[in-house]
């Protein structure tokens, strides 16, 4: 199985080699899509984990036991349809095709599963209709 996640590392554990441990101890392939990791500061990483289901669950349990907050990726970026003016400016900026134009209707659509949380859309959207909601832990 493959799953995209957002990992939040509290400052106290941010220097621990989690990705190495996932590979060595749990046989999980971690494909890092985006990372913002700095010494002694809370870190954030967007990652795709590939493993069999049992290993995957053990790996996630390990991360959580060390204080890492594991969030499903598709809930991190929220497209507020009511605020969207359907201008489409985001659709050529989004690198993963998560924000795209339905044709011939010419309406903007958002597919959370394709989103890689690069956040390019947040400021590319003139109407500020895309929001990042990282605050709530699971």
């Amino acid at each position, binding site marked *: 199985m493959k799953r995209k996640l957002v990992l939040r590392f509290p400052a106290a554990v941010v220097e621990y080699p989690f990705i190495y441990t996932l590979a060595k101890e749990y046989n999980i392939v971690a494909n890092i899509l985006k990372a913002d990791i700095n010494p002694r500061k809370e870190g954030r990483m967007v990652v795709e984990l590939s493993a069999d289901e049992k290993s995957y669950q053990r790996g996630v349990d390990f991360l959580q036991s060390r204080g890492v907050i594991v969030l499903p990726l598709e809930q991190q970026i929220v497209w507020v349809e009511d605020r969207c*003016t359907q201008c*489409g*400016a985001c659709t050529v900026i989004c690198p993963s095709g998560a924000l795209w134009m339905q044709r011939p209707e*010419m309406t903007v659509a958002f597919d959370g599963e394709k989103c890689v949380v690069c956040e390019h859309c947040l400021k590319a959207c*003139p109407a500020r209709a895309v929001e990042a909601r990282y605050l709530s832990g699971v």
Partner: protein
Amino acid sequence: MGKLRSYAEINEKISKGQAVVVTAEEIIAMVAEHGPEETAKRVDVVTTGTFGPMCSSGAFFNLGHPKPRMKMSKVWLNRVNAYAGLAAVDVFLGATEIPDTDPANQNFPGAFNYGGAHVIEDLVAGKEVRLEAESYGTDCYPRQKLETTIRLSDINEAYLFNPRNCYQNYNVAVNLSDRTLYTYMGILKPNLCNANYSSAGQLSPLMNDPDYRTIGIGTRLFLGGGVGYVAWYGTQHSPCGPRDERGVPRTPAGTLALIGDLKQMQAKWLRGVSYLGYGVTLQVGVGIPIPILDVETLIGTAVRDEDIVAPVVDYSEDYPQATGRTLGEVTYAELKSGKITVLDREVRTAPLSSYPKAREIAETLKMWIQKGQFTLTEPVARIPASDSGVRLKSLAVK
């Protein structure tokens, strides 16, 4: 070609609820099926629409006098400066104005999260806005400072007065350089990665009346969800540029200055928006009815996206340096397909002007007319047309 009906005859049908009204999109299929002569006999009015960023927009307000009275010489609404070089409590708030405290592009690219356009949207949405004013004080207007909050309903007159809306055709913006550009046409990625355009094409008002036979000074229209009028031709109105065999401009051409009562309008159709690294602008919804006076007006409204071309312009060099060079032409049908070819490369497109919102405006105006709530006006004067000799001047720096 013979005249089919007059404005008075159309308005009589509207008042009886008998007018045949279709949108500029629907008319295309009708003309394809029945031909222009037959369709012109059947249809009284064609409605158009557009919803896109229109920087040259703003609003006049008469804020009312406080006690004691005040000759407001500096005015801010939610920290955004409004021009007060008018009578005591009259001001003009421009859509692109930003607060004095905004860092603009000092930290490039600037976010421009709030400006005049957002104040207009907030007022129309019924929100409370902070008003600050300063004055030097006079015998008749002694007050020198003021801080309070206002709502649109507290203001005497509030009218939108947009010096340039409804651009008839526009550039397709691309970037040939190797760095990202932040423009009024959105973010342009390096090396021809994307092409941004901004027109409703076949639904756009002036595309459907290419030589301004029915749209003129005094034309009543849909503006920001309310009723407005053409006040004048717009700034940078340039009717004498290149046109195709149907008379449709191949480059940015005509524009309109529009006016309307802000108190009737809806925030849905007046949206403050922020262009990264560029600034604030107002997305304005406009819809204009076109009376089918004769077959010629009908043929104008039957224009299709595949018939209209727009110039592709490089915004890394040719636009800012005003070289006049273009990289070729593409049709709006190609632009709407999502991909165009520029310099033998496939380039992804984004509209900026919303086609579904333009359609919604054309449909809303159609409904107003069908219900007898909106009648048509004959222009009191024409705006300069393709035979006027009016040309756009550039500024000579001496």
